[in-house]
Each structure stands twice: as C-alpha cells, then as structure tokens.
C-alpha cells in the first residue's frame, strides 16, 4: 500500500499549456508581449488567456509553460512585492524583482515550477531592461528574449533585426536595441504573425504592454485562430 505517494504509472504533475512570450528592451522603453492561446494537447482550452502579469509600474512578467504553476508563481511574487512595498515604503525595482524571481524559482529546484519566464521593465535609471529565465531560476539581463513554444521561430528574427550588442563584450557596448518604440512594436507584431503560421500552440490573440516613463500602455490585436 503506497504511503501517501502517487503511484499511478502515467500520472504527471505537469502539463504544457503552450504559448509564446517576447520582451524587448529599448533605450527608454520596454515591450513585453505574449499570445493568448491556452492549449492542452491538440485542444484549445481558451483563446483569451493572458500570460502577462504586472508586478509593479516598472516590471511586467510574461510566462509560458504550465499555467497553473505560472499562476502560483505570480501570486507568490505579488505577495512578496506587496510585503516589500509596505515594509520599505516604495515598490521593488525591476532588477530587484528579477533576482527575487530567480530565487523563488530556485527554491523549488527539486520540484520545479514548469514556467518559462521573461521579465521586462525599466531599471533604476529609466532604461529598458529584459531578464530571461530557465525553469529553475538561472537568469541574465539581456537586450531581448523569447520563451515558449514559438521561441525557436522568433528568436532568430530578433537576433537578426534588433542589432543589440552582447552584454559580455569588453569594452562594454549598449545592449538595449537602438530601434524606436514604433519600429520595435512592428517587429513584435510581425514575429507573432509569422510564428502563428507555423506553430500550433501560438495564435488567437496578442497582448502587448509598453512600459516607458509615461507608465504602462496596453494593446491587443487578433491573431489567426486556426
């Protein structure tokens, strides 16, 4: 008799709900975008599920993977963020939130959150910053990133079009893209439209959030629903 352990042969605590997320850092803005399709196997569970989550006025997280784990992770971070705000009298900075997310993911190193995250926002100087993660918390600040099912289709386009230098070059060079907000937005819309054509888990709708000194501006557009 199992001592409280699940022993069903094919049961897994994880599911993959698909979806794709993108974040791009500019000199004074940051764009975070994700599609709105929620899938399970060959089924679409809903066309209107948001993968974006506002952590503060300067940090927005987008996550693909197992949406139950994503939701729990969002709640966990929101609680910590609120606690920080009440304890310190100011919201957590985006780089601070980035390390908090890394530690939160690593805390579950032996039963991981099945969540592939990108965090976008403005750093303490008002410059765009993007942080990209793996499922167990390794993270780095980059000029742009994608995660999720469409990442392998979208990343090469961003590598080619955004002209961001590597953060590791020495003498250091600017890693945020030199493109304007409008140019970067066009690239985001085009890449999602392309990924939707060739990826079954990406489509239905696209939510885009732009963070700059004027605050957070949200946009929604339709993607192909087939």
């Amino acid at each position: 008799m199992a001592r409280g352990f699940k022993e069903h042969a094919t049961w897994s605590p994880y599911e993959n709900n698909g979806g794709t997320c993108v974040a791009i850092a500019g000199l004074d803005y940051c764009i975070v975008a994700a599609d709105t399709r929620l899938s399970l196997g060959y089924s679409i569970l809903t066309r209107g599920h948001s993968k974006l989550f506002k952590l503060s006025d300067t940090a927005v997280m987008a996550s693909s993977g197992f949406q139950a784990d994503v939701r729990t992770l969002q709640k966990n971070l929101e609680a910590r963020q609120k606690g920080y705000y009440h304890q310190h009298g100011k919201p957590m900075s985006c780089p601070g939130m980035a390390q908090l997310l890394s530690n939160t993911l690593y805390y579950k190193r032996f039963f991981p959150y099945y969540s592939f995250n990108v965090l976008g926002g403005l750093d303490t100087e008002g410059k765009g910053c993007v942080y990209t993660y793996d499922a167990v918390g390794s993270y780095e600040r980059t000029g742009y990133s994608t995660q999720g099912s469409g990442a392998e289709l979208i990343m090469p386009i961003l590598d080619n079009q955004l002209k961001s230098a590597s953060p590791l070059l020495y003498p250091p060079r600017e890693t945020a893209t030199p493109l304007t907000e409008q140019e970067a937005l066009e690239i985001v819309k085009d890449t999602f439209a392309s990924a939707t054509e060739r990826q079954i888990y990406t489509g239905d709708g696209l939510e885009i959030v732009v963070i700059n000194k004027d605050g957070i501006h949200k946009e929604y557009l339709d993607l192909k629903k087939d």
Partner: protein
Amino acid sequence: MAMALDFSGLEPASLRQHSYSDPAAHWEPQCSFPLPKVADLDGFQKAAVDLLKPAHGTTTLAFEFQGGIIVAADSRASMGQYISSQSVKKILEINPYLLGTMAGGAADCQFWQRNLGTRCRLHELANKRRISVAGASKLLANTLYSYRGMGLSMGTMIAGWDETGPALFYVDSEGGRTKGTLFSVGSGSTYAYGILDSGYKFEMSVEEAVELGRRAIYHATFRDGASGGVASVYHIGPQGWKKISGDDVSELHYQYYPPESQASAPDVVEEQPMQQG
C-alpha cells in the same frame, strides 16, 4: 514612515537563517528545499530534467602563472539542441577578489555562487578579515557534498588572491574539491587543454597569458558545438580581479585567420562546383 511588519509566515522555510547561538548551525547548509512526495525521487528528478531542459554551460578554464591567475570562458547555453543564449555570464564575480566559473547547470552555479558570496561577506563581518580562497572553496564544496546524489550539476573553479598569494580550486557537484594550477571544465575542455598545455609557461607575461586563455576558448568554440558566443578573459592580481577582454569568437576567427589567408585556417571548405550527373 514605513511600518515594520512581521512577514516570517511568508518567508519560504528554506531561506530562514539558523541562529548563531546554535553551534551546529555552521556545519549545516543554510538552505533546505521542499521535495515532491513521490516514491521514486531519482526517477522524478530525471523526468523533470528531460522535461524542463535546464540551461547548461560549457567551456571554462583557469590557470596560475607568475603574474597571478587567468580565468576565461565562453558564453553559450544550450537547452537540449536549442541555443538558449549566446550571452551567459559564466565567470561569476563572487566579490572583488574571488571569481567563480560556471559549467553544468546554470541555475545551480548562479544560485550557489551567489550564496557563497553572501557567506564570504558574513565571514568578513564575523572575523574582521577576508576569507581565504581555500576557505571559500571549502564552504561551497561542503554545501554541494550535502546535496550529493540529488541531481545538482556543477563543475566550478574558485579562483582568487588571498594572504597566501594566488589560489585555484576545482569544486564539483559530486562533492569533490581539488587545488591545482591549471584546469579546464565543460564539454569543450578537451580542446582548451590542447591549446593550454602546449602554450603554457609559468614565466609568461600577463599579455601572453591573457592571449593563451583567449585562444584556448576560441579553439574550443571552433570545435565544440555546445560552446560559442563571446570569449571573456579575466586576470586576478594582488589587488583582485579585472576583466581584460570580451570578444565575439567569430571575430576572433578572422583575427587569427584573416580572409586573405583563409587557406591556412583549419577545416576551411574550398568552394566546390555543384555535383553533376
């Protein structure tokens, strides 16, 4: 004015610090992690690794010579066959006089070396002097030994300059800790060893040593598919570490083998006419 509220209920249990009044506290690792309630933990961990494909890191090297220590690494991370990043920082700055390298699981290396930095600082505050490289590497090795068998994957080098001079240790997730003068770790290490072993002389100048480290990483990225990106080189002297260079390896290729003399570059394919009939 901000209130001081009690958030201890929200702290994850693993990160609560043990009290200093408990003498056994120093021997225990400072974190403990929740485990899934399954009968076959090893099987679960294997399945989780296959499912999540955590990012892996790949060619790193470090060696001592008359002018101190050179530490160099590539910057590619792969998740399965996908190159998830070409800009991973694999040389981790633990504090201004200690460097650590990353090979194996990226999250494991980042987290435990950040934890090591915290503990080195606590040592300074408690003992009013900097921790030695031997001491820092021992702290890390003891932590990793306590997680032996749990599936952590780390092959790291701890390098620094302390009161005894330069020191270099290799520490891994099997719990091993070895002092040495030349190491290379990762999937590209064999290629790096070839360059290092043939070019190494203890009496090298700093410029020659930096160039040897850079070239060894370049050659490893040339032949190992899991290594690439930017070759970073750091030098550790009596005042601590300093980053010397960060060069894209594809640009290094054309520096070492300029286009006019491509014929002398290794493994260059001459343009062939298309196969016919």
